[in-house]
């Protein structure tokens, strides 16, 4: 996958549902369309939740990885 330029970083580690999603939704508003945000989360439910959230909002989940207990999501604003 080609490298993307991350505009915003959000550390949602340690937060429980629904705060990683709620904070991502608030943070993504600061981005222009097409820009990328990186989110780190430790909530295991966030894997399914970020996929669902991307489907409902139309923002694109372009990258997803896990390092130990930390999930990393890269999302492109619609």
């Amino acid at each position, binding site marked *: 996958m080609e490298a993307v330029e991350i505009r915003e970083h959000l550390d949602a580690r*340690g*937060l*429980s*549902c*629904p*705060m990683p*999603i*709620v904070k*991502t*939704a*608030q943070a993504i508003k600061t981005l222009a369309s097409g820009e990328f945000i990186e989110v780190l989360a430790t909530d295991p439910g966030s894997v399914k939740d970020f996929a*669902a*959230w991307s489907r*409902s*909002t*139309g923002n694109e989940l372009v990258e997803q990885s896990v390092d130990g207990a930390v999930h990393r999501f890269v999302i492109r604003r619609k």
Partner: protein
Amino acid sequence: MTTPTLELPVTPVDPLARAIAAVGGPDTAPERELEGSVRTKELVIINWSGELDKIWPVLILSSTAAASGVRCKVFVTFWGLLPFVKDQKRIIGENWMQKMLTLMQRPGIDHLKLSKMNFLGMGPWMMGSLRKKYNVASPRELLGAATAMGVEFIPCQMTMDMFGLKREDLIDEMGEPAGAATAIEIMTEADASLFI
């Protein structure tokens, strides 16, 4: 010069209307119209209970709906109204019965009981400890997020009258009080509605 004709979207109300619309060819097929529509989905929650274990899902679902681009309205009625009373208010009402009510059930978002295993406050205290241990957002934090993201909280006028609550007793973020007809209208227009 020809004036462009305005094409109204075909709303498939019944199979017959669908069939008629489909005759127009693939360009006017209802599926195509629906696919292209940008109508915002809507969730309505009737918040009736007012206990910690009921307020929590109401606030989690409403804030997540707003975060997911789903318009969310919460009709706040009966016991559900007391958590939306301002912090500094303690005993409210015009007569002893109304005052008694808020004396027995302290209003405000930080003073919620559990619907089961309350044990004179032991239950909520333990739930609060667990919440902090697992870093779960409190009802207060969630309420802040929900209102900041545009969740509309509509207080029930009839309950306000009966409990002796005035608009200024309720938090400023609440919308204008309304009644059952408003609740019915928003519920029937919504894509999903819940009674919690």
